[in-house]
């Protein structure tokens, strides 16, 4: 065999194995200029097979007690994994929860989960909706039993874990993997930051207003700093929800809720922890005119935000540049037929 042949065979072999490495261990890609993820990928190595298992589970109502509700019921891919036009989350037996289903993306960078930060680890998060009586109302052992007895999961489980059944940890980590794969970083704003597009005059003005008035909590590039704040919403008399205080039992945390991201707002209405606002103009109106200044109010909101009617429009124009249509219609995230 000539040297040339040997060379090409080696090259082929190298490319072949590289291909496998790429397929078996897809790297979690951090968008340019973004911080290091919070999630520890060392404890749950990324693999395409686990992502696919997680993706199938995400869309499968098998996770609920009566096999009617899937994760996607309240986290629809077409709504940036939120629940458009639904103020509060829905569950089995037509029950209604007490908070708005948040959008699911860029969660690798999130320090805590749920509106009140009740859960600190993404791998534990799915336990809450699966077991909550007003969401999926199931118990984890029964879910595991159902999955392990379902024919379509046999191959998926073998591919992901090399075993013929999964345990609780693997179930939750597979769901985490799919959720971690949901990265939204391809909005017009992102293109502008990468100097591929530019803002219109109106959007640019909105961006400047945003930096002056909003960015201390809705910090770029995630458009949240992950903290808990009281943004001056009077608690609804129906829900009586005092937010973070439920978790910490500390009065200082009364009416504090997690700062949500501002990406993909067009897809994720209604807004706020109880979905009380349908339109962005109502949200802006709240911050300029209706903030209830009480004892735990965020220090940035102690003085009202002052915006002219034109400035309000400009601010909203900027916020709309954070919509990422390619994320919403990404075929890698949708239901596998």
């Amino acid at each position: 065999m000539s040297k040339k042949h040997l060379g090409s065979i080696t090259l082929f072999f190298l490319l072949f194995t590289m291909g496998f490495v790429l397929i078996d261990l897809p790297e979690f890609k951090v968008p340019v200029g973004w911080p290091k993820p919070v999630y520890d990928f060392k404890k749950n190595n990324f693999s395409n097979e686990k992502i696919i298992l997680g993706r199938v589970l995400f869309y499968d109502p098998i996770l609920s007690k009566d096999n009617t509700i899937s994760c996607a019921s309240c986290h629809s891919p077409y709504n940036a994994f939120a629940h458009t036009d639904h103020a509060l989350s829905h569950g089995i037996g037509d029950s209604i929860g007490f908070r708005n289903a948040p959008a699911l993306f860029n969660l690798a960078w999130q320090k805590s989960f749920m509106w009140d930060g009740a859960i600190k680890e993404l791998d534990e998060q799915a336990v809450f909706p699966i077991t909550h009586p007003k969401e999926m109302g199931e118990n984890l052992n029964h879910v595991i039993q159902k999955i392990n007895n379902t024919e379509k999961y046999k191959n998926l489980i073998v591919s992901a874990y090399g075993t013929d059944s999964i345990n609780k940890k693997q179930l939750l980590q597979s769901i985490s993997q799919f959720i971690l794969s949901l990265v939204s970083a391809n909005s017009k704003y992102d293109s502008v930051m990468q100097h591929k597009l530019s803002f219109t005059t109106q959007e640019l003005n909105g961006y400047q207003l945003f930096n002056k008035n909003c960015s201390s909590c809705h910090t770029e590039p995630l458009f949240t700093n992950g903290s808990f704040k009281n943004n001056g919403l009077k608690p609804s008399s129906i829900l009586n929800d005092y937010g973070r205080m439920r978790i910490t039992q500390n009065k200082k945390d009364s009416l504090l809720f997690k700062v949500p991201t501002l990406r993909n707002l067009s897809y994720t209405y209604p807004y706020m922890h109880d979905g009380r606002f349908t339109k962005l103009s109502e949200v802006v109106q709240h911050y300029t005119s209706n903030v209830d200044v009480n004892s735990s109010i965020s220090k940035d909101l102690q003085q009202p935000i002052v915006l002219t009617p034109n400035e309000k429009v400009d601010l909203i124009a900027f916020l709309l540049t954070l919509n990422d249509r390619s994320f919403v219609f990404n075929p890698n995230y949708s239901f596998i037929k």
Partner: protein
Amino acid sequence: MMKRILLLLCFVYACCNVSISQTVQPIRLSFVPKINGSPIALNQHCFSAELNDSISITKLKFYISNIVLLNKEKVVFKNTGAVYLLNAEDSLSLQFDVPQNLQFTRIQYGIGIDSVTNTSGALDGALDPLMGMYWTWQSGYINFKMEGFVGNLEQEDKKFEYHLGGYSDKNNAYQLVDLSIQSLSENLQFQMPIDIIFKSIFSEKKYNIMSPSASAVSLSKKIAQSILVK
């Protein structure tokens, strides 16, 4: 010669265009939800003698699709493929064009999205999931959405949410309305007696129906059967 043919073609084309634009006329369908016989306004409490209680509607959205006009038994117009999402927040009217002087004595339309459209993968226009009327792959679209409160006070236990939909088998909630038109008009008004339609479900205190089910189907039937043409 070529020039002449071209000119002639242009002339024929222009004539056709003119004739098309001259021979259509708009037909407007308006839906009027009523309580106690009077048209409702969103977020306003009003008393219903039928319910012997107050009611306030905070949201009312529904799909109208597959509009067909008939002259006696013969189909004279089909608005094929058109789906309209009506929202009380904006307007409960829709408009489409028919050939001028079209005679029709009956109208048929669907309330909701039929099973074929549900599984066609169309996600644009009125069917865009952004409209808040799409559930998931297994349950499809919400056909009819009404939310509000029974009683004077806005209390949790008096809040109703009806998201009626479902497209498969026995849970198919899509309904066909078939009504005779007494006097030919470009403006057809359809009345929806909300308090009459929802009376029995309210009296059962069944305030939440939000997934495909037998109750969703029976309530959808009731809505379709209660619509009156003015």
